């Protein structure tokens, strides 16, 4: 694992690369924050710089995307989070890249074209949290039915509100044929 100092060096390098690419230094070079918790390094980046950050980290050896997962930080804002777990198999290093987007504008650029493994996982996050991955080739629901409304993993999603269909109560439940 990169230690706390190593993480700051990575963040600095990312900011420098960001400026060198001519994308300006306004939004802190794409890297908003760094966190080091329980021997695990994490970078918080802006949604616009996700692809560039991941590509840069790939160049540094983090070539394997182990996992992508969604988080709902309710009631904190911005609420929705997407985490990319990167792994360097030669040095057995892991680093997390995080993005936060508000519910009102849940757009994150898709990384499926660069990292094919993100395909199903981005679809799952879209399904469960409603994060829209721009540029994803096949952004559909994956676990919930295609006609499902809402995003059930959000923290404010009501639990237990759906009636269960049984033979005895089937005709009495609302909208049972739709």
């Amino acid at each position: 694992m990169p230690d706390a100092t190593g993480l700051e060096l990575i963040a600095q390098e990312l900011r420098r690369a960001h400026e060198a690419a001519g994308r300006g230094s306004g939004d802190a070079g794409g890297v908003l924050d760094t966190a080091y918790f329980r021997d695990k390094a994490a970078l918080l980046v802006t949604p616009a710089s996700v692809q560039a950050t991941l590509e840069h980290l790939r160049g540094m050896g983090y070539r394997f995307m182990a996992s992508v997962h969604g988080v709902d930080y309710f009631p904190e804002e911005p609420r929705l989070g997407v985490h990319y777990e990167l792994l360097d198999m030669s040095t057995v290093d892991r680093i997390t890249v995080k993005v936060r987007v508000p519910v009102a504008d849940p757009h994150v650029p898709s990384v499926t074209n660069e990292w094919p493994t993100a395909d199903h996982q981005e679809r799952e996050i879209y399904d469960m949290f409603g994060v829209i991955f721009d540029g994803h080739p096949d952004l559909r629901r994956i676990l919930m039915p295609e006609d499902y409304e809402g995003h059930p993993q959000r923290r404010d999603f009501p639990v237990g509100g759906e009636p269960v269909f049984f033979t005895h109560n089937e005709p009495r439940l609302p909208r049972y044929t739709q």
Partner: protein
Amino acid sequence: MSTPEVRRPSAPQVPYREMEESVELSHIAHEGDGEQELLTLNLGPHHPATHGVLRLLTTLEGEVVRDVKPIIGYLHTGIEKTAEDKAYWKVIPVIERMDYLSYYFNAMAFCGAVETLLDLEVPPRAQYLRVIHLELNRIASHLIWLATGALDLGAISIFWYGWRDRDRILDLFEMSSGQRMHTRYIQVGGVMEDIPLGFEQRVRDFCSEFPSRLDQFEALIDKNQIVLQRLRGVGAVDEQTLLDLGVTGPLLRATGNPWDLRKAAPYSSYDHFDFKIPVGTVGDNYDRYRVRMAEMRESLKIVEQALDGLPEGPYITPDRKYALPPRHELATSMEALIHHFKLVTEGFRVPPGEAYYPIESARGELACFIRADGSSKPARVHMRDPSFVNLQAFSAMVQDSYLADLIATLAMLDPILGGIDR
């Protein structure tokens, strides 16, 4: 007296085909104009060879598979959502039911993540006991793979032999924890109970007998011309493609990449044991079969070493804030009673933070991500299930192969739909 009006339900008016418009097939190259047309075949969701409730939208040209789209979610039970509503230690039983063949691994990943958040140390004896059960679970899981995989190839004897020997492992689980499946044995901070008297001897008996069973399986399969022709050179995918698709576990090792978290990033004292990582050469179905068979032998070696070196000491953390006090203390100690009450009613609180804890399950990297918000319930639990990620490679594996080989390749992929859909 009037009879209540019975309304007959009409067919649901849901435009399923239109909603699946994105399942687009025009990109698939196919030869022959008019004479050979593409056939779309829905394999599953209810099909014995899909190892669960998996639907494969298959496009065939004659007997050759041109495209496969796995459609999943038929077994989705919202376990990750359920977990957010339970105290940490009450999450373990539901987490175990995700990948229902490797329940010890699910519990291990979850407990490891919670222990990381708590910065809790697990006693050495508990770590060894975990390793013993994890490796027995790996063998049990591989035996189901062998049994059902062989059945898909048409070999019925192996099917029964595999289940028979797996039952012996379940007997061991029953002895140590009282349950055959979903044992809730691994707890935060250690394991639920110390192993009972006689357990060690029965595990040793199993370890001494099982290699001969493996020899029998291999004698049945390795010289069977039908099986060899169905496995050799079928479904091969190169290492880089698998890495790009995030595939881990025996599928990746079959291509010659020795990536195994037990060696690379040892957890739970795996660095104390002497074992090898079996790898293949070309990454076809035969290599996948050989790798898993060799893994079972290595797992036996680990179990035996763990029994030999089993340290004395507590089997769960002595920190009463996280582990239940022993029964006899409740009658004599006020503090024990209070701790027991707090743990059972509210559960322990976990400081805010996020943890990602990967382990090597029978199918690859199984990781648990937990976000804690300081309360006694997790704010987010996510399982990075290897079956879910590995399934993405299926299309690459069966591209331009025969439909019959698709069944064999799916068996060698070894997906568990409970883990995929969660």
